[in-house]
């Protein structure tokens, strides 16, 4: 279609038709203020912060919802408009607690930023405040309606991207509250604990349950051996919490900083990922030989596991029994490593830094206990870890990088790419191919499963047998893929599902979007993924089963993949959970 002319603030611009004023203005370098808008979600038009003046229109229009037309004359910054926008934000502030100095989102809050950019420097009105108890029942996600400004981003994300539909705006007017059905506690709801509501919330109405206090207490207890592990995607994103652009690998800095915090041993969750892959590839080959159901579906994403148990329990037999890399690493810390150290596992405090809020839920699952103890005592998110480092006065950006501790510090390139969508599949195929055929996979980079498409499909031929695989990320996409599986159960042999958009790199515990950035921005996710792919490429060991630490673990402790002792410590089982979730027919 031919371009049309619009006028912004008196100057003509040629733009594509069929887009909104906001989209057109963004491309021309006019950033219209906004709040309820998110590019990945449906248009709500609720906050009215993005209003502009359009000549011939009686009222200001919401630029997020209004399409451009030929000859349209738009003003984005008149004095009246500035005043109107400021009034809108002031009215939001009137009902807001206004206790920024004690708020978790102080400095990362979009309402705070808007208030500043609107030039709000004094308060004219004292509005009615909300007074609801915060719901702290969940292990992972806390809901605090008092800080909510009803932008509806969380509701839309939970329904549209994740298709969990746990949240809605209940009641009406001033009494509107975002809550699960029947106002039941979050822990009894269908919430998957993915934490994406935390990522998209502009304020602090959703937060992860904070465990930094407990971790600081443990770090100050001289009777404990303090062990920490961190996930691949944490190193790919934590720099952003310190002001770096996305795309920096901060592995060595994080190891050094965690030692400065007081941890005695810093391990790599990637080492556990190599263990997961060795077990999972073996399990897959067993299933391929008729022992167990196909397609096999991965189980390392804890949000996906909770979602599966509540929404897709008919597929439980298809789920790999392998625990996640975090839980495997934790299990090895409390058994193998405790024995090596000759300390009682009760005396080990096992901490995990994760990109994920659902890992907090996973760590508390009773099924994952190891000899009556939690494999991981505390999970802190990337955000919480960054705060701990800042709070302890550690100069993270200038610290000299340090290597991991042994024995769970060595990892292969396959363990690294676990953190991005398609990574588990690629890692599993690298090992499964060799274990099955006895030959080396020449083209080790499985391009078909890389990238950010909703559903990726690939094929590998192993000894003449075609293995069909599928990869998806985001729980909404997972539902679509699983419907395809139900229709044609023989369509795939192996499926990877990650609960969050982009995989773990887009996890619900990753740093908040910075100034002028969008939560869950795909470009930022791609840069984080690239960090992991680069790390993989520079590794000499790129296959999980070749990891010497893993080989030693089997020799000294686990015997062999799928051995009885492996089953005891590295595998688990799932069962259907109430309440059952409903996914509406689209």
């Amino acid at each position: 279609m031919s371009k049309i002319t619009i006028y912004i603030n008196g100057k003509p611009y040629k733009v594509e038709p069929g887009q909104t004023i906001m989209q057109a203005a963004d491309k021309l370098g006019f950033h219209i203020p906004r709040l309820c808008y998110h590019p990945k979600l449906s248009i709500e038009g609720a906050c009215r912060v993005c209003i502009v003046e359009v000549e011939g229109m009686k009222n200001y229009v919401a630029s997020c919802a209004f399409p451009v037309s030929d000859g349209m004359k738009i003003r984005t910054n008149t004095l009246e408009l500035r005043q109107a926008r400021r009034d809108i934000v002031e009215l939001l502030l009137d009902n807001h607690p206004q206790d920024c100095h004690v708020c978790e989102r102080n400095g990362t809050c979009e309402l705070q930023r808007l208030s500043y950019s609107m030039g709000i420097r004094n308060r004219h009105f004292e509005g009615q405040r909300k007074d609801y108890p915060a719901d702290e029942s969940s292990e992972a996600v806390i809901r605090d309606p008092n800080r909510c400004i009803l932008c509806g981003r969380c509701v839309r994300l939970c329904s549209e991207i994740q298709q969990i539909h746990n949240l809605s705006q209940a009641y009406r007017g001033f009494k509107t509250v975002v809550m699960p059905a029947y106002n039941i506690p979050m822990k009894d709801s269908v919430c998957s604990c993915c934490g994406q509501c935390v990522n998209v919330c502009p304020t602090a109405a959703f937060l992860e349950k904070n465990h930094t206090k407990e971790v600081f207490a443990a770090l100050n207890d001289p009777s404990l051996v303090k062990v920490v592990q961190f996930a691949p995607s944490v190193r790919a994103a934590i720099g952003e919490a310190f002001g770096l652009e996305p795309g920096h690998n901060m592995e060595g800095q994080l190891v050094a900083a965690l030692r400065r915090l007081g941890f005695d041993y810093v391990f790599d969750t990637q080492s556990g990922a190599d263990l997961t892959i060795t077990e999972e590839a073996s399990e897959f080959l067993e299933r391929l030989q008729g022992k167990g159901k196909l397609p096999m579906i991965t189980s390392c994403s804890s949000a996906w596991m909770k979602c599966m148990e509540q929404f897709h329990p008919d597929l439980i037999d298809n789920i790999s029994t392998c625990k996640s890399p975090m839980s495997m690493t934790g299990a090895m810390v409390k058994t193998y490593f405790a024995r090596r150290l000759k300390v009682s596992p009760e005396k080990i405090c096992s901490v995990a830094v994760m990109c994920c809020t659902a890992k907090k839920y996973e760590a508390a699952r009773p099924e994952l206990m190891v000899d009556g103890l939690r494999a991981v005592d505390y999970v802190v998110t990337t955000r919480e870890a960054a705060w701990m480092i800042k709070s302890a006065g550690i100069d993270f950006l200038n610290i000299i990088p340090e290597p991991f501790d042994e024995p769970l510090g060595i990892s292969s390139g396959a363990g690294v790419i676990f953190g991005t969508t398609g990574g588990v599949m690629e890692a599993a195929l690298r090992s499964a191919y060799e274990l099955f055929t006895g030959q080396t996979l020449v083209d080790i980079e499985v391009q078909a499963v890389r990238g950010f498409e909703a559903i990726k499909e690939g094929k590998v031929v192993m000894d003449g047998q075609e293995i069909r695989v599928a990869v998806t990320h985001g729980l909404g996409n997972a539902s679509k893929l699983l419907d395809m599986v139900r229709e044609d159960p023989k369509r795939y042999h192996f499926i990877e599902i990650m609960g969050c958009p982009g995989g773990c790199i887009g996890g619900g515990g990753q740093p908040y979007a910075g100034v002028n950035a969008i939560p869950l921005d795909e470009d930022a996710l791609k840069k984080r993924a690239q960090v992991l792919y680069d790390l993989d490429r520079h590794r000499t060991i790129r296959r999980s089963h070749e990891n010497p630490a893993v080989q030693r673990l089997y020799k000294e402790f686990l015997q062999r993949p799928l051995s009885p002792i492996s089953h005891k410590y590295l595998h688990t089982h799932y069962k259907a959970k109430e309440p059952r979730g409903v996914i509406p027919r689209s």
Partner: protein
Amino acid sequence: MQTTTDQNRQQLIEYINQLPDRPYRDSYLIAVLHKAQELYGYVSRDAMDLISSQMQIPTAHIWGVVTFYHYFRTQPPGRYQISVCLGTACYVKGAAEVLQAFKDRLGVEAGQITEDGLFSLLEARCLGACGLAPVCMINDKVYGQLNPDKVGRIINDLRKAAR
């Protein structure tokens, strides 16, 4: 023997099944909720769960609709439903004091039900009996020319009658 709940469930399922099958079937949600309230006397959690699984609508969405509209009740109504008129005529004749007297004596706010399930208290706009202002309706009966003392007597009488 079938319990009332079983009968209600069955009738609700029958009602949902006879809805015309056309695009945007979700748009019948409000009609179905009206049916549920007619059957159960209120929109029970049992009914909402049933509607969710039958119509494949998430419970959170149903809950959002039910709580948005004043008409839908999420708790069983009291045996005596008291609607206190706050229309203009009643208001100038002291309806606010009457309402307060009901609140004090029953220990509930408007929109709530007493713990024993006997009384539910509601605010109403003009009941069309302005000549008797201030008035209230209890179930189908109109009580006129109310004052706080009279409110106490009415409640005592109803409590006795309920024994």
